[in-house]
C-alpha cells in the first residue's frame, strides 16, 4: 500500500521481463530462472532468512518457552525488562552453563516507576534444554500435539528473553506465535486477491467492450477510496456482532474466523491492480496465433481463457505475487496495530504486539523492548522484496549473467 508508485514501475519492468522470457533456450524455463536466481546473492539471502522465519513460526510452540497466552498474576511480572542470562560464574570467573536469577520488583523512590532487580543472593536457575511442560501443550501445524519446549528454567524463576508486556506475557514467545499469523495472512490474502484479479482481468481482457468497461470502472471505484479507510471500515463493520455475517458464524467471531475475515477483506481491497495488469497482458495474448488457433479448433471461451491465455501470464504473475506479499503483510500488521486484526486474548500478531507500545500511559523510553516485534515485520517485508526483485531479474533475459 505504501509504495504503490515504485511497485507500479517494478511491475512494468516485470512485464517486459515476462514477455522476453517466453523466448527461452534449450533448458526449461523453471531451470533457467532458478539458475539465474541462485546467482543473485542478495535475493538468495532474502530467501534463506524467509525460510528460517517461516520455519520458526511453524515450530513456534517448540521454540517458545511459554504458551501464547500464559501469564501469572503474582508475583507481578508486567513490563519486566529482558531477563539477563549469565554465562560467567561470579565466584570463579569462569564460563559456566547459562543461568538466570529470580527477579524481585520494587518501586523507584523518586519516579515511582516499578523496577525489577535480580536476586543475586538467591539460588541460580540453570537454563535447561528440551523441557516438558505438560501444563502448556501446543500443536504443530494444528495437528501434532506436544509439550516439549526447546528451553526453559525451573519455577519460580522465569526467563523472558525479550521482556514482558502489560499483562506479564513473554514477548519472545509471543513474537514467535505472532509470526504464524503475520507471515501467513499476507500470503493467503495475496491468493484471494490473485484469484479475484485473474478472473476479472481475464474476463475483461478477453471480452473487451462493455464487460471490460464495467470491470475497469469497478477497479477505478475501488481505487477511488483510500485503501486504509476501506480496510478500517470493512474490518470494523464485519466484526460487529450484530452483523448478519457475524451472526451466521455465531455471535462472537472466533480467532480463526477473524483471521479468515481479515484475509478476505485484504484480498477484496487489493485485487484491482492485479486485474488491471492481467487484463493488459490478456489483451495482447488473445491476438497471438495459438489463441486464435485454439478458438478456430472450437475450444470453448472458458477453455481459451483459462487454459490458453492465463498460463501465458504465469511467469509475470509469479513476480507480481512475490512483490505484492510485503504490501499485504504491512497492511495486516497495520490493521492489527489499530486493534482491528486478531484479538489480544487468544492470538498474537506482530502489529498487535506493537500496539502495546502506544497504549495510554506508556512512556516508550521505560519499556523499549516492546518495540522488538517491529523488527520481524521489517525483516519479512525486506526479504520478500529482495526475493521478488531477484525473481524479476531472473525472469528478465536482458539481465542474464
Amino acid at each position, binding site marked *: 500500500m505504501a509504495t*504503490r508508485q515504485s511497485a507500479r514501475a517494478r511491475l512494468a519492468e516485470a512485464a517486459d521481463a515476462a514477455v522476453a522470457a517466453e523466448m527461452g533456450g534449450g533448458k526449461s524455463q523453471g531451470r533457467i530462472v532458478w539458475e539465474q536466481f541462485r546467482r543473485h546473492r542478495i535475493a538468495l539471502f532474502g530467501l534463506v532468512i524467509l525460510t528460517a522465519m517461516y520455519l520458526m513460526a511453524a515450530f513456534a510452540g517448540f521454540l517458545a518457552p511459554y504458551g501464547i497466552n500464559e501469564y501469572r498474576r503474582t508475583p507481578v511480572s508486567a513490563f519486566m525488562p529482558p531477563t539477563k542470562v549469565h554465562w560467567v560464574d561470579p565466584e570463579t570467573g569462569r564460563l559456566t552453563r547459562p543461568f538466570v536469577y529470580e527477579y524481585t520488583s520494587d518501586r523507584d523512590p523518586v519516579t515511582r516507576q516499578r523496577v525489577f532487580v535480580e536476586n543475586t543472593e538467591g539460588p541460580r536457575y540453570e537454563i535447561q534444554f528440551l523441557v516438558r511442560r505438560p501444563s502448556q501443550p501446543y500443536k504443530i501445524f494444528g495437528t501434532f500435539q506436544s509439550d516439549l519446549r526447546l528451553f526453559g528454567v525451573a519455577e519460580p524463576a522465569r526467563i523472558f528473553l525479550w521482556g514482558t508486556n502489560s499483562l506479564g506475557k513473554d514477548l519472545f514467545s509471543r513474537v514467535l506465535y505472532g509470526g504464524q499469523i503475520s507471515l501467513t495472512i499476507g500470503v493467503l490474502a495475496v491468493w484471494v486477491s490473485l484469484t479475484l484479479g485473474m478472473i476479472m482481468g481475464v474476463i475483461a481482457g478477453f471480452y473487451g467492450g462493455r464487460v471490460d468497461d464495467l470491470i475497469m470502472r469497478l477497479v477505478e471505484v475501488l481505487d477511488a*477510496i483510500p485503501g486504509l479507510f476501506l480496510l478500517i471500515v470493512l474490518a470494523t463493520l464485519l466484526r460487529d456482532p450484530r452483523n448478519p455475517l457475524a451472526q451466521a458464524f455465531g455471535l462472537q467471531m472466533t480467532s480463526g474466523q477473524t483471521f479468515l475475515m481479515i484475509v478476505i477483506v485484504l484480498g477484496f481491497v487489493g485485487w484491482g491492480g492485479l486485474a488491471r495488469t492481467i487484463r493488459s497482458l490478456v489483451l495482447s495474448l488473445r491476438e497471438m496465433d495459438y489463441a486464435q488457433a485454439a478458438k478456430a479448433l472450437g475450444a470453448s471461451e472458458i477453455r481459451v481463457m483459462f487454459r490458453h491465455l492465463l498460463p501465458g501470464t504465469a511467469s509475470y504473475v509469479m513476480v507480481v505475487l512475490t512483490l505484492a506479499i510485503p504490501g499485504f503483510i504491512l497492511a495486516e500488521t497495520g490493521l492489527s496495530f489499530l486493534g482491528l486484526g486478531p484479538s489480544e486474548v487468544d492470538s498474537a500478531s506482530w502489529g498487535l504486539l506493537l500496539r502495546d507500545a502506544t497504549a495510554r500511559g506508556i512512556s516508550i523510553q521505560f519499556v523499549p523492548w516492546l518495540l522488538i516485534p517491529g523488527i520481524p515485520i521489517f525483516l519479512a517485508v525486506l526479504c520478500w522484496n529482495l526475493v521478488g526483485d531477484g525473481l524479476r531479474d531472473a525472469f528478465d533475459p536482458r539481465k542474464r549473467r
Partner: protein
Amino acid sequence: MLPFVIRRFFHLIPTFLGATLLAFLISQLVPGDFLTTKALEPNVRQETIDRLRAQFGLDQPIMVQYVRWMGNIVRGDLGMSFASNQPVVNVIRRPIQNSLYLVVFATVLLWAMAIPLGVFSAVRQYTLGDQAVSAVSYFGLAIPNFFFAQVLILSIFLFRGFTRENFGWSGLVFPVAGMTSTGWESFTPWQQFWNIVHHMIVPGFVVATAGIAGFTRVLRGQMIEYLQSDFIRTARSKGLGARAITYKHALRPAIIPFIAGIGALLPSLIGGAGLVEIVMAWPGITPRLLDAITRQDIYVVLGFLVISSLLLMIGNLISDLLLAVADPRIRFS
C-alpha cells in the same frame, strides 16, 4: 486546455457515484443504527425514536436513503452527526485539514529529498555512495511507518536523556505528539505557523520515507537509462557541460512518470499518514474515523470516505494536468 479539464471532470462523475454507492452499501452492513442503541435507554420513548428515525430518513429503503443522501451531498450537505448532533461538515473539516497539512508537507519533503538522491545515485552509479543510497532505500521500503515513528520517538527520548546528563538541557529536539504546543491559541500567527511546522517534521518525514525510498530507486533506474541514450551522447559531443546534461536533458524526461504518479501517490500517503497519526497523536482523519466508526456515527464515517475519495480524484486530475504541462509530447485534443 479548458475543454480537456472539463472532459476529465465529467469522466470523474461515474467513478465518484460508484465510490459513494460502495461506501454507502458498506455502511449498511451493520443492521441497526445509532438509534438502536438509543432505544435501549429507559428514559427514551418509542415515539421519540420513531420521530428521529423519520427525521434522519432511516425508515426508508436503502436506495431511497442513498439517493437522498447523494442529493444532499451535491448541495454540499453531508448530513448530521448522530453522536455530536451537529452537521458532519463541522465535525470533519478540521481533521481533513490537519491530514492535508501532513500529506502536503510529506509530498514536498519527498520530492525535495528523492530527486537529489536519485540523481546522485545515477550519476555515481556503482560507487560507495550509490550503494549506500540503495541500501538505505531498501530499508525505507521495508520498515512499517508506524514502527518507524515509534523508533524515532524512542530515539528522541533517548537523545533527551543524553543531553540532560551531559549538557543539562532537557528539551525535546522535536515534538513527538500532537500538532500544536499548549497555549498555541495565544501565539502570533507567525509563531503558530512555525509551531505546526515544527510538530510536522517527524511525522512528515515518517510518512514520506517509503515514498522517498521508492522514488529514489525508480528515478535512479530512469536516469541511468536516459544517460545512456543517443540524445545525451549528442549533447555531450556538442560540448555541453555535465550539469546541463544531467539536469536539463536527462532529469526532465526521467521525472515525467513521477508527475503522472502523484495521483497514485496520494492514496498511499493518506493511508500511510493514517497510522502515523495514531502513533503521534496527530489530530487527522484516521483517529477521528476510528472514533466515529466505533460510535456508529455513520454519516461522519461516510463523510470522511466521500471527501477523501473526492480529494483523491482531484489529486489525480491535477497530476494529469501537470503531466500535460511537463511532457511536451502530450497534447490536449
